[in-house]
């Protein structure tokens, strides 16, 4: 079987791209391929916000990402620099900026772009959404 990395650069809900990436990742793991990781960059980092309150009549993409991560051990990596300028911040960011609040929690991880380089090195295909 083969291995993928996905690069998600679009915001959830406002555009379909992030949802399409989720469907692709799900189809890949169901076909017994390995998804080495999903890397969120640019507006894609907004997928990592734990504060999203999805209306009950809409698809909850945040919950779907979390289920994908736990069921199939797919790492969800959020680019720290792209995220923090968009208000996607970790407990550590909150501490450093004296803000009691933050929005990024597990299973989403805050990482540097170097992690993407590692993902790509070990993947047969990179697909961007």
């Amino acid at each position, binding site marked *: 079987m083969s291995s993928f990395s996905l690069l998600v650069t679009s915001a959830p809900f406002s555009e379909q791209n992030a949802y399409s990436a989720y*469907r692709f990742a*799900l189809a890949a793991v169901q076909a017994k391929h390995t998804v080495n990781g999903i890397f969120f960059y640019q507006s894609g980092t907004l997928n990592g916000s734990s504060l999203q309150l999805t209306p009950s009549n809409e698809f909850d993409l945040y919950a779907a990402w979390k289920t994908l991560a736990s069921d199939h051990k797919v790492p969800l990596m959020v680019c720290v620099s792209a995220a923090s300028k968009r208000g996607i911040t970790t407990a550590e960011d909150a501490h450093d900026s004296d803000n009691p609040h933050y929005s990024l929690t597990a299973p989403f991880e805050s990482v540097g772009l170097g992690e993407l380089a590692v993902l790509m090195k070990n993947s047969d295909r990179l697909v961007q959404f």
Partner: protein
Amino acid sequence: MILHKLTTSPFRDLNMQHCLQRLGESDGVLLTQDAVYALIHQDIREKLNALSGKVFLLEEDADARGIEANGNVEIIDYEGFVELTFKFNKVVSW
């Protein structure tokens, strides 16, 4: 051997035209999201028909929008989309 993934409507932007201008001989084109409306765009549809066997349509996105396959377009679902990335050497997203 590049798979060109398109996501936007050719009635709205010029992505598809820019992609088709730069298509390699053994490349393929995958229509996803609003790019499925290419099949009701007269000029683009003719260009795609000339690429017999190299144009793929993502079924879920086409069905959602009420667009039917025509010409020589091959219909695939997400599972087929995953496999398609291995029939080509890499994927370029427009």
